[in-house]
């Protein structure tokens, strides 16, 4: 991680209301977690009744690697038997899946 300074970027996640998960909304700069949280409050919650904010240092996030994209996510699309459309319809007007 880089040396802490006032320019350290933090990713901001907001829970807009009860029952919803925190969602990524953007980023702020801040020297530490408290300052980042205060900056996120000032920037992203001027309206509406936000329930809670998370801030996470941008360089603490690990992202999946683009070069591994295909093998990494391949199970999502290549297994048709994971989808209900793959099977015989329960009712007459429903069509078979592929």
């Amino acid at each position, binding site marked *: *991680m*880089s*040396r*802490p*300074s*006032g*320019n*350290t*970027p*933090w*990713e901001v996640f907001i829970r807009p209301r009860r029952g919803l998960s925190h969602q*990524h*909304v*953007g*980023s*702020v*700069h801040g*020297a*530490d*977690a*408290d*300052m980042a949280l205060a900056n996120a409050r*000032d*920037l*992203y919650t*001027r*309206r509406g009744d936000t329930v809670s904010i998370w801030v996470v*240092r*941008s*360089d*603490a*996030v*690990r*992202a*999946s*690697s*683009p*070069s*591994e*994209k295909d093998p990494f996510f391949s199970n999502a699309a290549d297994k048709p038997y994971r989808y209900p459309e793959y099977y015989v319809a329960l009712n007459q007007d429903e069509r078979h899946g592929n």
Partner: protein
Amino acid sequence: MVPVPGGASAPEQPGAVGVRDGGERPDAYFEALLAAGEPVETRDAMPDGYRRMLVRQIAQHAHSEIIGMQPEGGWLTRAPSLHRKAALLAKVQDEAGHGLYLYSAAETLGVSRAELLDALHSGHQRYAATFNHPALTWADTGAIAWLTDGAAVVNQVPLCHTSYGPYARAMRRVCQEEAFHVRQGYDLLWSLCRGTAGQREMAQDAVNRWWLPAVALMFGPPDTATGADDRTAAMGAALTRRSMAWGIKRHTNDELRQRFVDNCVPQAERLGVVLPDPAIRWNEERGHYDFSPIDWQQFREVLADGSHCGRQRLAHRVAAHEDGAWVRDAVDAFAARPGRPAADR
């Protein structure tokens, strides 16, 4: 999974810089995204020209938001009531926030906020020249919000669907807040127009001075044959074509300008002010209001660096930045202090 290098250049999906989705044929991948109407995200392969056009546009936009705080900010201590003062304070604070949303979006393209501010301060990047006009009376705060912000909304609503994801998301936040800006400005002028003769005169005078800057400068140079002489229009059209092909812009400048005029004419009538253009009249055939062609020569002069008010705006911005240096230094020292809690590192 691989560890990705983070750092100041890469908020939102950190580590994006230098690693791109797009495989062996990045150009085809990018074109396919555009063709499918899919947003382009931080880690997607993108042509360098696309990236540069975005940085330039988002930076210009961010700079305009923070310079745009000045004309109205000067009236904060002189607002005529606590209600108007609270509303104006909220609006000016929003403009600072819009600047931050946009700087944050620009940073996803691999530029740092410090670089962008340096470019603004040194004059290498520009902001909307509209704000190089002075705000002479209290009514100007109303006219700026109604006309300048009103023009900004017309520009920004299509940008909520611009092709670059982080920019589009920033614009959606901005647009939600701009509606308040325009309404409070119109409301302010509404009160003046229903006040004394002197107040009505002040409202009309402010509208007289802010109409043309909004119509001309908030939409940029003409880019269709209807907007100007052939040469000017051809230059604008080439840029607009490129931008539209990349899905950054969705409409021509002249199209949006017309939409703005069509919005304003009935609003001005309800308000009881006269828009300072004798050529404005409904054109049944076109289904739009006609208005005078804009004297672009005059506006090129406003755009030049020589404008007195423009120099003041920039000098004020630079002074504010320099006066704040000790705060940034103190924050850095605090962040680097020995014994800092591990959770903050």
